[in-house]
């Protein structure tokens, strides 16, 4: 434990970075998931096809590989673009934070796509017809009838996907984001206590995932409150 004392503030700021990546990636995954679901549900065969390819590719390729493609790929592309205008330009570095968050957002977005699509289709068509029969517009039906039920149906899977986002954040140390894995590596070179340093990382992750799990359970209880019997 004594070995840790000098490093606590580094772990703290590292944890903040992890949380930042988490929230950005989670937000992006919801956006990609919604776009993907809309494409899957649309009449357009092209949109449908693109969404299907998106899902297959991002669910079938290792997360690490996608991350590397993003990080190095973007850097190489930007460098080439820069050299096109300015042949003497040096190597352009893309911020690894954004490369990482986007990659994770895209990966988990592929899973979110199916969750959102399932939730949309899970709403009883009878209710939609009932709402239309009352004269509600398509938009009103979506906002007042579908949406409130969709999020209840999507919540359990959404919880699992947010846990995936959290666990995937550990990968971004590989492209040089200075979060807790990076802190552990630094601390190890100084203290020569790798187990202490990496187990600390594990405990921090365990704490955060526990918090996410509890929050989701609470949200689920809230979302299902009207389904409980009166007794």
């Amino acid at each position, binding site marked *: 434990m004594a070995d840790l004392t000098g490093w606590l503030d580094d772990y703290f700021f590292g944890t903040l970075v992890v949380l930042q990546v988490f929230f950005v990636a989670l937000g992006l995954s919801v956006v990609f998931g919604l776009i993907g679901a809309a494409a899957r549900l649309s009449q357009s065969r092209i949109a449908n096809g693109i969404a299907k390819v998106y899902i297959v590719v991002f669910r079938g390729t290792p997360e690490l590989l996608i991350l590397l493609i993003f990080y190095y*790929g973007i850097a190489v592309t930007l460098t080439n673009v820069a050299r096109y205008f300015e042949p003497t330009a040096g190597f352009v570095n893309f911020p690894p934070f954004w490369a990482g968050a986007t990659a994770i957002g895209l990966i988990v977005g592929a899973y979110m796509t199916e969750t959102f699509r399932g939730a949309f289709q899970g709403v009883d068509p009878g209710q939609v017809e009932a709402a239309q029969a009352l004269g509600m517009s398509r938009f009103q039906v979506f906002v007042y009838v579908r949406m409130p039920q969709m999020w209840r149906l999507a919540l359990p899977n959404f919880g699992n996907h947010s846990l995936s986002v959290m666990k995937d954040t550990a990968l971004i140390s590989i492209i040089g984001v200075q979060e807790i894995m990076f802190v552990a590596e630094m601390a190890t070179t100084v203290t020569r206590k790798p187990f202490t340093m990496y187990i600390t990382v594990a405990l921090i992750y365990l704490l955060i995932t526990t918090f996410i799990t509890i929050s989701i359970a609470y949200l689920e209880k809230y979302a299902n409150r009207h389904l409980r019997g009166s007794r």
Partner: protein
Amino acid sequence: MSFNFDLVWSSLPLIIQGLGMTLKLLFLSSLIGLFLALFILLLRISGRWYLMWPAMAYIYVFRGTPLLVQIFVIYHGLPQFDFIRESIFWPVLREPFGCAVLALSLNAGAYVSEIMRGGIIGVDKGVKEAAMALGLPRWQQFIYVTSPIAIRLALPAYSNEVVSMLKATALASTITMMEMTGVARTLVARTFAPYEIFISAALIYLALTYALQQVFAWIESHASRYVKKER
């Protein structure tokens, strides 16, 4: 700034050199993971708190932390302790291969045991009661009635888990293993053509994912033959 297709073709055979290692990691860790999962499952459903609690703690820790962190704790962390370096396990734990297999197996054990438990919970209560009413002892009920049905119910989730494990083998590259991602990363460092090489690797992973899914689809349809009506 052009995508070099020739480079894709020329790098494919190089990356395939890592395929053997990828498959070896996948095969070994899913096999060990399966036995581990069965063991954890038996503890988990034993109904005795002193067996259930360790199983639940195990599942909680391994599902609540990123696999990459687990790999680092095992590979970088364990040598911190003298008693490990002096133990009979050291020849295995000293090698990145042993560490990768250990981490992947431990991780799979946690996930797969929960998948199995899901299958068992899904078995119709009435069918179990019928076996009970015939006077089969508990272990025979479990082996001849509950398990075969539970396995069928758990297969789809298990097939997803094996695909996840295939993707997880890529993380072994972070501890110097030369599986496909590891090979791809060295090639990129040499040629600096990240798109071409990483995408070639991704294509092989996608093909493997597809093959795994086909195999499991076949097993599933075989295992569910009794669910379908004739005609």
